[in-house]
């Protein structure tokens, strides 16, 4: 039985927000950090609370900590030692293995995310900009009251119009393939596989192997929490559109090229189901838009190229142990949309997302290392994920086609990593425990 009253809402629920704000914090003083947490945790919704009041709520808050942040709050060394190695090391130390090299190297990250002083994160989602600004001002007053608490940086989120459906700055429909957790009260859409055991995403519950994995100690930290990998990806919309124009003479050819990079038309319609022509109605229909496989329906990649984004991020029936590699994604877009036909304006825009899973090394790091950035994924030899892989202009992208495939050489980088970090997302009781650490000893 999932403890909905203790799990942070963000793990299982999506807020109906069109804007939001992330604030990255540092604690120079443990008591100040705990005072901040004691105040902010009153605003953190559990799954139960969020579900009960989603219609009337205007803002949703989540709180998470880096390993350094847990120490900065006053957690003892014995307890700190019980966290998994990759979380202790943090994303920066894992950069090479994650593919964060060259332009994506942590030395190029912004907002103080690459340094050891990054301790905490507060995620705000808001129904409108007015509410976001109200919360921002309120949080500013709270931070000013807490000794030694400093905001390292912040990022405002803005959904990109049209608001009827979620999509990124390149125009791709998003949120099409999300795992469903057993007992969470949701039904998977056709093609999404069965519900997954809660332990794949929430600490303290049996996972797909039927065991409860090692969790941090003391016991109050071992249940209802999770881990989050933060990734801030700048999207080079101008370069992306130039590339489409270079490789497609007509708007139809350009749309097809965009679809071949992703594996879906920008409408969300899967190429496996409609390889030659977009079908927006299919793309918008959750009962149909995820209902496909690769092994039987497209083994050679004539519809969805073997190295395309969706084939790498979710190889479906062409990978082993898929149920142990799934991840929950939350987040949104930032920066202003670049109008169609407008030249690149040099303003930064992109996606800032959280990948939530019970094991960073087995789920997030595996996906980054083996699927996104392995040049030889599916024997491709010299490719990485065309959308979010580390591209330095030396790699290829091959589009299977009869009689002869199309090979693009020197694929440009459409995205760059601008920041990232590993966070622990505690349950609500654990948040209260962390806030009271000073009193416990």
């Amino acid at each position, binding site marked *: 039985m999932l403890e909905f009253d203790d799990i942070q809402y963000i793990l299982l629920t999506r807020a109906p927000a069109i804007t939001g704000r992330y604030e990255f914090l540092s604690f120079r003083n443990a008591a100040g950090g705990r005072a901040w947490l004691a105040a902010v945790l009153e605003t953190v919704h559990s799954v139960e609370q969020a579900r009960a009041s989603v219609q009337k709520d205007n803002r949703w808050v989540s709180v998470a900590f880096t390993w350094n942040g847990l120490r900065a709050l006053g957690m003892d060394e014995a307890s700190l030692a019980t966290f998994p*190695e990759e979380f202790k090391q943090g994303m920066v130390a*894992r950069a090479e293995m994650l593919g964060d090299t060259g332009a994506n190297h942590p030395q190029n990250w912004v907002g103080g995310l690459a340094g050891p002083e990054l301790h905490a994160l507060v995620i705000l989602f808001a129904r409108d900009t007015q509410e976001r600004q109200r919360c921002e001002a309120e949080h500013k007053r709270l931070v000013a009251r807490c000794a030694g608490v400093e905001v390292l940086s912040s990022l405002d989120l803005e959904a990109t119009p049209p608001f009827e459906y979620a999509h990124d700055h390149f125009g791709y429909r998003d949120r099409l393939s999300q795992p469903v957790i057993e007992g969470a009260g949701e039904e998977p859409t056709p093609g999404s596989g069965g519900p997954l055991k809660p332990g794949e995403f929430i600490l303290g519950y049996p996972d797909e192997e039927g065991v409860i994995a090692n969790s941090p100690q003391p016991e109050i930290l071992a249940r209802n929490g999770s881990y989050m990998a933060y990734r801030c990806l700048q999207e080079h919309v101008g370069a992306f559109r130039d590339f489409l124009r270079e490789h497609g003479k007509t708007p139809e050819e350009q749309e097809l090229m965009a679809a071949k990079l992703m594996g879906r038309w920008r409408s969300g319609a899967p190429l496996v189901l409609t390889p030659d022509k977009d079908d927006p109605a299919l793309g918008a229909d959750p009962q149909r838009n995820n209902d496909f496989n690769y092994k039987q329906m497209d083994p050679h990649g004539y519809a969805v190229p073997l190295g395309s984004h969706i084939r790498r991020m979710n190889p479906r029936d062409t990978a*082993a142990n898929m149920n142990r590699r799934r991840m929950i994604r939350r987040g949104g877009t930032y920066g202003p949309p670049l109008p169609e036909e407008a030249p690149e304006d040099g303003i930064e825009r992109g996606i800032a997302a959280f990948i939530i899973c019970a094991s960073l*090394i*087995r789920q997030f790091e595996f996906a980054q290392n*083996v699927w996104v950035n392995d*040049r030889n994924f599916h*024997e491709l030899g010299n490719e990485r994920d065309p959308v979010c892989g580390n591209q330095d202009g030396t790699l290829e992208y091959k589009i299977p086609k009869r009689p002869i495939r199309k090979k693009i050489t020197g694929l440009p980088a459409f995205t760059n990593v601008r920041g990232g970090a590993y966070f622990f997302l505690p349950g609500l009781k654990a948040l209260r425990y962390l806030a009271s650490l000073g009193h416990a000893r």
Partner: protein
Amino acid sequence: MSDAPKQNDWSKPAAMAIPEGGYFKDKIEQGRYGPIFPKTPACYGFSIIAKIIPGREPNFYEYARNIEKAVAGQPDCLAVLKLHYLRWNLFKIKGDNYFQYMGIFDTDFDKYTEDAVAIFAATGLNTVFENLEGFPKDWKTNAPAFIKFVRDHHCPSFLEYGEYPYVSAEEIKKALKLKAAFSDMLDQMQ
């Protein structure tokens, strides 16, 4: 460094001398569980050597029969490991029995380690490791402990050779399929 130019040289046999410790210190690549042993003309691989718990020797022969049966029953049961060849040996040092497990495969060990643990757990292929001294008892639920045992008992090569260097098993199978298809085509042309 791209693998592509190396893969084009399949026709040119190659040998690689490997420094003591198994790594080229100036180009160590990091995997999820630690540094990755380099790819050589003989692809990736490992050689695990460990001491057998005394009296457990018969289990190894039973294990061999189990593996034979498992692969015959489901020929692709090890496919995820991207293997070329596996060899298992038993030998004595000063009267004690030792076990050697050598594998040649196409991905670095880190990539599919958890999948390997899952396969071993699901197919009962585990039994042989449980007869080795120091093998973690909770390995089924503790992949990092399993991985540490394997890394601790791996004896890296100091020299590797490939007659057709860097070629993957998948490429070999593709070439053989192509040969069969051409042969079939020629039959159809008669």
